[in-house]
């Protein structure tokens, strides 16, 4: 096989994987702490894509022309507002259900996901929305003159840098700060953490906000890269990111990142060398197969069911 095509798919797959990994963090953290699938997380990502377009357009209307400044500000605002949405979703749809049956939060999450989708459709319209190409250009390997090359755009570089930085920041928060310690304690044993004075309700809220912020980073990066989206994008991307979380071992942060990269690479190679039409089928099949044969994922520990 042509090494340049393989190299190009490798680049595309890593970019895709970074995005899946960022969204997967939201699923994995919430699952780790309260054991539920936050089905509305894909919609949170979708909202952040809309917020990106809204803030970019507003900033350019206000007269901020510096690309770097506009992008940084958009990222910060998107993280802030999407985090707020994550908080609100937890507050409205999940917190009142603590201690209810196991199906209840999942059904409520599906309801919430329908609500968010249609909230966006009604307020922003059903048509495709887009983000202008704020950052163009890129470079090729080998540099010039060659017939065959691997193309890497500047946006793709930004994606890798921002994704690595946010994952590093998250790892730092979780491992080194007292907030992270409380999060890990709540994840290990929620009752014990409560007894030791951790405000677990607050920690759960914070976990939702962190998950939503990571989703927001992904939303900003994806809309800058692809430029176009509509109110449906949250569904498929959400399931794929969930696949990444399961693949890596749900509940584990490094697992989510690893799962994202593995899924991104395999999807990219599948659509590059086998068939583009069936790439979603491929991703969903991975999900089904992993859940059947290795539900604990690559890095997770098997769950023991107790009475």
């Amino acid at each position: 096989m042509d090494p340049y095509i393989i190299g190009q798919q490798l680049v595309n797959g890593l970019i895709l994987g970074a995005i899946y990994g960022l969204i997967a963090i939201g699923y994995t953290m919430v699952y780790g702490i309260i054991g539920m699938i936050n089905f509305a997380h894909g919609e949170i990502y979708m909202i952040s894509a809309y917020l990106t377009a809204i803030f970019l357009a507003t900033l350019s209307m206000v007269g901020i022309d510096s690309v770097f400044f506009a992008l940084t500000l958009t990222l910060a605002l998107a993280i802030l507002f999407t985090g707020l949405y994550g908080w609100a979703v937890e507050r409205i749809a999940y917190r009142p259900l603590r201690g209810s049956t196991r199906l209840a939060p999942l059904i409520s999450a599906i309801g919430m996901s329908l609500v968010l989708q249609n909230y966006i459709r009604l307020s922003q319209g059903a048509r495709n929305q887009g983000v202008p190409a704020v950052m163009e250009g890129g470079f090729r390997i080998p540099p010039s003159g060659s017939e065959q090359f691997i193309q890497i755009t500047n946006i793709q570089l930004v994606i890798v840098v921002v994704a690595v930085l946010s994952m590093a920041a998250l790892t730092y928060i979780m491992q080194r700060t007292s907030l992270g310690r409380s999060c890990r304690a709540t994840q290990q044993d929620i009752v014990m953490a409560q007894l030791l004075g951790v405000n677990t309700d607050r920690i759960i809220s914070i976990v939702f906000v962190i998950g939503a912020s990571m989703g927001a980073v992904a939303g900003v990066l994806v809309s800058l890269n692809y430029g176009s989206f509509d109110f449906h994008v949250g569904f498929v991307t959400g399931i794929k990111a969930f696949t990444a979380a399961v693949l890596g071992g749900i509940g584990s942060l490094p697992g989510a990142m690893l799962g994202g990269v593995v899924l991104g690479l395999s999807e990219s190679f599948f659509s590059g060398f086998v068939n583009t039409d069936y790439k979603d089928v491929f991703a969903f099949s991975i999900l089904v197969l992993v859940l059947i044969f290795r539900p604990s994922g690559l890095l997770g520990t098997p769950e023991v069911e107790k009475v």
Partner: protein
Amino acid sequence: MFITALKEAIFIGIPALLLFGPVTGLILNGYEIIVDWQRPILLTLVVMVGRFLVSLGSSTEKGKHILESFSRKRSANVSVSTTQTTLPPLAIAGILCVAALLPFFLGNYWLNVLILALIYVLLGLGLNIVVGLAGLLDLGFVAFYAVGAYGFALGHEYLGLGFWTAIPFGAGLAACFGAVLGFPVLRMHGDYLAIVTLGFGEIIRLVLNNWMSFTGGPNGVSAPLPTFFGMEFTSRAKQGGVPYHEVLGPIIGIDYSRSARYIFVYLILLIVVSLMVIFVVRLKNMPIGRAWEALREDEIACRSLGINHVTVKLSAFSMGAMVGGIGGVFFAASQGFVNPTSFTFFESALILAIVVLGGLGSTIGVITAAVLLTILPELLRDFSDYRVLIFGLAMVMMMVWRPRGLLKIRRPAFKLGRSA
């Protein structure tokens, strides 16, 4: 009291304004922004007034009483009794008579709505077996619906199946799919199972959409109109039969009417739905139905009491799928055409909403919810944009306030006396 309520309203108003502000106030128009100050402020005011009234109301005696009735929600509306609640036979006969006579007074548009309502009743009954009775959350139920519909359409195209042979064929095919899906997912618990079924449903839809040479891809396949003993319900025979008005015209003197085919489908569907209701109600009282409900309540206890969870779960899956498949055959027959856009995840969510709003496990509740959820949106055409939003809100609110359903469910069980 008034001041606290006001404080709480302001406290909720600030995040609400932040949430609504950018999304409803700044509207994307290409790469430009149209500013709309009114919408976010209006929405925030609605939230604040709502919060204010709730706070004010909950501080009065009556409000406290209402709140208390909500907090006793978890198990309070499940009463244990040895008798089954059923409607009196006279009421059932009355409802059936009205339902059977209804199509003769309605136009084609409303006939179609009624047919759709009955199809959703079937789907609701099917999913109710899986989710309501056996407690296995299936988010890909639409797959079985699609298998039934495509089973009929493709069966006609490749095997020359007619409508009547397609009903058992579609039902059997869907049941097989149910068993095939059920087998690998048996070991999973609630939410993993939900996601796998969701993935399965999407895989079926994507394959139907992409396998151009077999399914016709996004263009879909046409399905034949149903016939009755060689009579066709079109003005001219197309499938080698005789048009119904040429057979019946001389005997009872009726002319060709365009609504005849809809009336026919509706009446057949009504009979099938009635049979299915009887079937499901009977199943519920049989050992297998009891085993489903027991498994839903506590799987580990069931297994230690010797219930074979594999067969019980598999039977729930394939029975539910079978009912869904029959719904699919009727969908294809009434539309005369199927394509993959009818089988998106939204359909699954809608059927789930029917089962949830009907009160997980209650047959009467599911029927009522299915009819209401299909007919209400037609009556409220002006609000059709808000339909799904309201479904979603209703699902969330149901889970918060009445996780066991709107209707009071009586579960068949023996109650021990005090001396026991």
